[in-house]
């Protein structure tokens, strides 16, 4: 079941391809860019399936995207805030919890915790920014849960921090808004539905396995959502915005399902 121990992890490989595509795409005009991306992204099987290049037809892309939006709606309908992700005993914690990002470990952002501020934006009463000690001083909760990656692997880890629902209440967030959107110090971004934001297991994680959250897992703060896949658990959070505007996400904009819940 172990992940392959090659120099290039699958997510690195995906990221490399993505980066190459972005670099190339920038040099092309918009229409050939769209064609290039479509062909680049669905090369292979489609040609084999039919003997003709299905990807020439934008309809295919658009049908798949409609299915993905439909799957968002189904998942939001299936989502029951009373359903909890299983919690495990301490002996189940993975001893080799992987680093995972769209870049390599050498590019992990080095953040100075003394200077770091969490910015709040959008539909909230209190938009003042937060320092790390202020978050450390709030009531902390702890969880040992399974982190499931979109790639299929999963690992059990222990995260501690502030329950996100408590924080949203404290800052007077409009919890009738549709989305909570995150911007991160590593240029990652993603957004989630309000119901998942308010789920009791969704936390602003400040610690990992009893120690201060290390850089590779998102220092100084990551959003830990055990009811969602790994790419919906953003690290190195800088800005939290409550909004009714759909802001997508780094991988979601490339085709990963937006709801991404488990």
């Amino acid at each position, binding site marked *: 079941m172990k992940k392959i121990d090659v120099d290039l992890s699958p*997510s690195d490989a995906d990221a490399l391809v993505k980066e190459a595509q972005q670099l190339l795409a920038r040099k092309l005009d918009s229409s050939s860019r769209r064609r290039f991306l479509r062909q680049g992204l669905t090369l292979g099987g489609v040609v*084999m399936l039919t003997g003709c290049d299905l990807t020439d037809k934008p309809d295919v892309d658009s049908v*798949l995207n409609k*299915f993905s939006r*439909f799957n968002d709606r189904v998942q939001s309908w299936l989502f029951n805030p009373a359903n909890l992700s299983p919690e495990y005993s301490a002996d189940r914690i993975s001893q080799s919890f992987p680093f995972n990002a769209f870049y390599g470990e050498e590019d992990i952002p080095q953040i100075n915790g003394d200077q770091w501020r969490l910015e709040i934006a959008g539909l909230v009463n209190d938009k003042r920014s937060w320092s790390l000690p202020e978050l450390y001083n709030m009531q902390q909760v702890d969880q040992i849960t399974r982190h499931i990656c979109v790639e299929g692997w999963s690992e059990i880890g222990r995260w501690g921090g502030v329950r996100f629902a408590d924080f949203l209440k404290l800052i007077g967030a409009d919890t009738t808004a549709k989305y909570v959107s995150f911007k991160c110090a590593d240029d990652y971004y993603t957004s989630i539905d309000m119901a998942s934001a308010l789920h009791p297991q969704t936390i602003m994680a400040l610690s990992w396995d009893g120690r201060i959250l290390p850089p590779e897992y998102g220092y100084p703060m990551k959003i830990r959502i055990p009811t969602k896949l790994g790419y919906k658990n953003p690290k190195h959070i800088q800005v939290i915005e409550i909004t009714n505007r759909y802001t997508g996400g780094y991988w979601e904009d490339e085709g990963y399902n937006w709801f991404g819940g488990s």
Partner: protein
Amino acid sequence: MDDKSKCSAVIHPWWLRVCHWMNAAAIVIMTLSGWRIYNASPLFDFRFPGEITLGGWLGGALQWHFAAMWIFAANGVVYLAMNLFTGRFGKKFLPLSLRGFLHDALSALKGKLAHADLRQYNNVQRAAYLFVMVVCLLLVLSGLVLWKSVQFGLLRDLLGGYEAARYIHFYAMSALVGFVAVHIVMVALVPKTLLAMLRGR
């Protein structure tokens, strides 16, 4: 039955043929995209060659997989419902006995199993088709756990957890691919079965 009615007798009703080909298309899409998804984090010490997968990258494969799953599942429900509703299930797949299975398997190996009447499944066929129905059901159930392991918590626990569901999904896929391989060989040996599945007679 006179010759005329025998000639025009319908072997597979239209709804069955529609279900069959919808299912075939869904299975091809789900298997090829599934192989690409598998490659992102292989369970075993091998990967599927990229050229025979669908989707181009993990995100594309997931889009195909999560689109075709609706066709696969809905088609499966229609197939089972129509089979039960029309009484076809009992007529075609039952009775099934171990003795009959061994007898038919043996005569098949000796090349003596006749396919004179395509409306009648022999015991080996019955067993194979019932087997693949169970496999497809397992694929759907384990797939639900992989897709929504928190929301389908009871199902997840019944299957032995999220990681166990990954293995069940993989083994069920392997069984399905094995079935399809044998199925295609048998159709090649008795080509009129393909005609029957296309035009009904």
